[in-house]
């Protein structure tokens, strides 16, 4: 299920992987194999999913990200963690996708972002979107947030 060896977002949460839905979608963006974008979806329970994203989120991969997010939010999921720990770069188009999905969340739905890469964190900060999203440094905090046991963003 791991398409690219450097995927690094499962950690302890892998033990919580109870759901049958565990999908990986990889797409080669642009010309050339060096820039690769991949998503992996895990269903933790009937309402909670983790969408792991790897690679570079830019103009080329933004549409794939959009579909992956829409897919992750289907089927009764209203607690979503977008794990960007393996993302090296995110551009304005991909940010726009995240903003659009966040803005379109149903009432009562929660979405959190896991982000550890300093450049990506800087982009969130520079664009002021750290005020829009709930951004956490690790998956546990994010899961706790979407499940309602934690209320403050890191």
């Amino acid at each position, binding site marked *: 299920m791991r398409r690219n060896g450097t995927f690094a977002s499962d950690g302890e949460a892998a033990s919580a992987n109870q759901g049958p839905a565990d999908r990986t979608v990889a797409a080669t963006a642009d010309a050339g194999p060096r820039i690769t974008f991949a998503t992996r979806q895990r269903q933790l329970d009937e309402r909670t999913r983790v969408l792991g994203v790897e690679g570079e989120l830019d103009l080329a991969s933004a549409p794939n990200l959009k579909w992956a997010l829409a897919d992750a939010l289907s089927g009764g999921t209203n607690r979503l963690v977008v794990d960007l720990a393996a993302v090296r770069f995110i*551009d304005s*188009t991909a940010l726009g996708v995240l903003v659009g999905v966040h803005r379109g969340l149903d009432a009562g739905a929660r979405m959190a972002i896991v982000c550890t890469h300093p450049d990506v964190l800087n982009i969130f900060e520079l664009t*002021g979107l750290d005020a829009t999203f709930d951004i956490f440094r690790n998956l546990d905090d994010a899961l706790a947030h979407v499940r309602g046991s934690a*209320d403050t963003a890191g």
Partner: protein
Amino acid sequence: MASGASASRAGRRPLLGWAAAIAIACGALTGLHVASATAKRGGARPLSTAVPGAAAAPTPAASGSKAESGPAVVASPEAPVVAVKRRRESPAGKGQGQAKAQSRSGASTQQKRHPTTAAAPNAPAGAASGQAGEGSAASATTAPSAVRQKKSRHGKGKEARSKGKEVKAEARGSGSAQASGRVQAASVRAPAATIATLTAPAAATVHATLPAVVGRPSEPASRSRRGQKGHGTGTAVARNGAPQAAAGAAAPVAAPPTLAGPAKSVKRAPVAARPRARHQSSPLATTVTRIINVVPSLVWIVMAALAALAFALGASSRVAALRARRLARQREQLLEDVGLLQAALLPALPRRLGPVGTSAAYRPASGPGAGGDFYDVFALEDGQLAVIVGDVSGHGREALPHTTLLRYTLRTYLEAGLSPRSALQAATPVLERQLGESFATVVLATYQPRERRLVYAAAGHPPPLIAGTRSIEPITTSSSPPIGAGQPTGRRQTVVSVPGQALACFYTDGLVEARVGRELFGAGRLRRTLAQLGADASASALLDSVAKQTDRHPDDMAACLLRVEGEPLAPRIEVEELELDRRDLLRGRAERFLRAGGLGGAELAEALDSVRSAVARHGGVIIALRLCGGAPEVELSPRNVAVLRPSTRAAAGAVR
């Protein structure tokens, strides 16, 4: 194989696939048809070629078994044998009408569709080899005199109905038989002299194919199955209602079939007219027909398949041409859009606005990312100068109206006298209602030449690079979100003092997101590039330099430069402002902002306490972090909606 190829192609190009399939089907049908037609023709030929002989000897086809195609035979009373035989009617002649045969005399009359038959007088036996309607021949037994008396009606005339013709056979006087078509009249006179003469009264209209068959006199109708022996002379008038023989063949009708010798009582004289006769008359047609006849059906099928393939290829070529034309049209449209973009959204700037040199440049992305960036630089009433640089999400045509909307809306608020931050705050609700799903990042700035102070506020946009003798490092934490992100924006503002020479570079993220190998170009490289270009740098030179240093430009690049002249004094940040509400406080934005400003320890704790109490009291607060040398100074003011330009100090004092 051709169908296989077309089928696989059909997967990709449905239209072409259908065309090919239809073409192949048509080709196959054509091949089959041709093959069957060839077979038919081959079968028919012996019959036709045998006509003369068959006339003498009653052929099975001519025999009474086929009522429809039989010739009309009139046996004249005096003629021992009158055999009139018609050739088989041509297929075209079928189904045209009814043939009526009446035998008015005792002569046997047989009707055939086309045939005009002449009975030979003096024939001992009327041999009707043609197939008359049953009993038609029988009815015309011996009534020689009756013929003359036109007793035919009383005689056992019989009507044979066959499609297409009405033949009337009448026996008149002795020895003459007359056959006349209905439309044309072909009369055949058969004097006793054994010569049957066919005359075509209306030559031009005679519908040819009337082979007249004249039975020789004195000949026993030995072979006619239904032959009747008629005596006396008779005149047979056949009215042939079948005009199909038509086509110009008329004239030759007059050809009198003279039957010499003891023919077997019936002779056939195909008189012009028949289609085959026409074909045969043309050597070219004959040759072609012969060639066609010998082509095997397999070859026909192959030819059909090849034709289908050719058709498919032609269709494919046509489709490709159409597609190319459409793409060319779309490209034209896109280029036109780019032109519109340049004209409407990227204004030409004067080289100077007051004491400030200005330049701007735009470089569209070489791909789908083109469009969405915009800028504007304009003078305000009080001598200030304003800059707008922004980027709308989305690209291409759909981004155009939004860029226009943003540029002019923001410009309006700035011209109304609002500070950049206030302009953002005020414009955001207006813009969000119209942006729909889109969002935009933008940076607004005003420059007051008298005070040499630059004020800017960004919404999701990178702050300007301000470089003089040294660069400034603005606080980027707790930046304002973009317009349309669903959050209030216009939360941050920065005031920069520009005492001496400096270059302020406003840019869109296309510059820092351009790629160098796997890396981003980044703000660091951009700053160095700007420094290399020197004080006289222009925006276009900057973009050119960035483009040279990078491999890919997935997004538009736009840059706007303000060049402030003066002494070599370093620019510095005077004030950093942040507006907070309860939610921001919970998220720790105040603390991060103050830490970034250099506060810590007890100072920070004290400041945070003040912020919390102010937020609790007013619902929101504006933190102004004064960085004018020495220790940073925190100034709190209740949140307000509109801060009057130009001084943040004045704004801080304006309490609701």
